């Protein structure tokens, strides 16, 4: 795995430049030559990506392909991980995030949903009100409004409206994942990153969350990292295929799923022949 990354792989060509989106959406994220390594062992090599505003951008690929590392770099999670080194540039609304001194302000603009639901050990209400409170909002009416709005948007309100004061960590897995989404929405992010959100969620809840995402797209940019190629097909407008720490191919979802790919590995993965 490691050798495969460091040696010159026969397929290691510069990925085909992403087709520009026909709409006039501005670029939300511009990732230039991004490389990530942990203790000198590369996890992601030379990634170039452009993500546009108000699109759902799918990232697919087998395990250990560097998908989660990419999200961590976007959120500046490398700051506390001394083993993690990031090189290259990430432009968020045109600003290089590595140069932002206040990473907390950056993170407040990015909502993250993790693979496993994280209901913090506090009440459902406090879970959603945490982010506004962190940024100094203590007005009860305002918090009430935010909590209700976010829970409704995460399709959880009807199930928890009568028990907002019960522990968030006692909800079922699917409910906790929607709670996590509600929490991520409570800070009005411009960018929502979902990392394999459906791993611990039943199919019905997954479909409900997918419907929510389609709605949210109008207001924010969404990066969807997923192991389920079909999920990416359903939701994403464009897809990047990652493997062994490189971005193999970027393309429009429809054209990629109708066989219009340049790399054999992408075709094999999409067809489900490995992964």
């Amino acid at each position, binding site marked *: 795995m490691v050798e495969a990354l460091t040696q010159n792989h026969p397929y290691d060509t510069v990925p085909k430049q992403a087709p520009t989106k026909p709409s006039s959406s501005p670029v939300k994220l511009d990732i230039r030559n991004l490389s990530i390594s942990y203790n000198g062992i590369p996890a992601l090599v030379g990634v170039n990506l452009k993500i546009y505003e108000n699109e759902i951008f799918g990232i697919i690929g087998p395990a250990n392909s560097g998908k989660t590392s990419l999200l961590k770099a976007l959120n500046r999670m490398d700051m506390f991980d001394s083993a993690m080194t990031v090189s290259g540039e990430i432009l968020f609304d045109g600003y290089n995030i590595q140069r932002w001194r206040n990473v907390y302000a950056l993170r407040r603009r990015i909502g993250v949903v993790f693979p496993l639901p*994280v209901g913090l*050990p506090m009440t459902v209400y406090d879970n959603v009100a945490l982010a506004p409170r*962190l*940024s100094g909002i203590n007005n009860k009416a305002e918090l009430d409004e935010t909590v209700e709005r976010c829970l409704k948007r995460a399709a959880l309100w009807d199930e928890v409206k009568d028990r907002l004061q*019960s522990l968030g960590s006692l909800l079922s897995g699917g409910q906790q994942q929607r709670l996590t989404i509600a*929490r*991520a929405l409570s800070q009005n992010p411009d960018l929502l990153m979902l990392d394999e959100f459906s791993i611990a969620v039943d199919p019905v809840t997954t479909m409900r969350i997918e419907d929510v995402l389609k709605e949210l797209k109008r207001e924010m940019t969404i990066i969807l990292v997923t192991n389920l190629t079909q999920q990416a097909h359903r939701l994403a407008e464009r897809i990047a295929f990652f493997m062994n720490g490189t971005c193999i191919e970027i393309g429009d979802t429809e054209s990629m799923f109708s066989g219009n790919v340049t790399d054999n590995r992408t075709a094999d993965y999409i067809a489900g022949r490995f992964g």
Partner: protein
Amino acid sequence: MTGTVRSLAAATPSARKQLDQLDRAWYIDKIVQFIVFASGISAIIFIVGIFIFVTKEGFGFILGAFDFAEFFGSPRWKPTSEYNPTYGILALIAGTASVTGLAMLIAIPFSIGAAIYVAEFATGKTREALKVLVELLAAIPSVVWGFIALSLMNPLIIELFDVPVGLNILNAGIILALMAAPIMTSIAEDALKAVPDRYREAAEALGATRWQVISKVVLPAAKNGLLGAVLLGVGRGFGETMAVLMATGHSINLPDSIFDSVRALTATIASELGETVVGSDHYQALFTIGIFLFLITFVINLCADLVVRGIGKV
């Protein structure tokens, strides 16, 4: 699966007998179960035994010379008086409470702060070195602490605060705080480490600063363990004998300030029990103090338990 079931049903009589045979592993399993059960139940047997013994020794006093108002309301502890022995432990309670209170005032912020540093901020060698040193500090015998109180703190307090005696609440409180802090730090650190990292990551992803992560998420999540650490410290304070005996000045006194000498409940038992006639009022009164200490620790633990359960129910 069905294959296995079928083969069992079709088993020959000899194969069935084999299934019914008790082999070595079966006996070892039963023996280990019994040993573990006995070890577990022994804690209950010991605590009940201690309670019965202490109560038996002190019961004669409670039925005889014991006067509730005098015992808890009078500061006069004069068990050796020839004509009118009095058994008031108010001053002793005040001594124990003031020393423990001051010690906790110092030790709680100190040890929680230390635990936060070790668990959340320190990395690599610093962390390992700190953990070892904290554990070493917890292993210092209490008589050594008493010695430090007598020979180091005593002159220091006299000089710094210009008071006649340096063996007082301040001295004992500081010594007790230093004794309780390492074990409290250790337990509190374990409680903080037990908070899953995904909680921290979730809070960080919301844009929480390090301090916000700790104060809004990690500390609330670890509150039961932290409460346990604090109560362990309080228990240590109530129970500590030798260092307190040496550092408080051991004079029966209702204190006005932290520069007054006091005497603790435990120190009274330790210093007087050897001098009494077995079975005398004085002897039994000392055991009654023992019952009282026992009940206090019981109530503290019960409260802690109720608080912890209450928090869990929300």
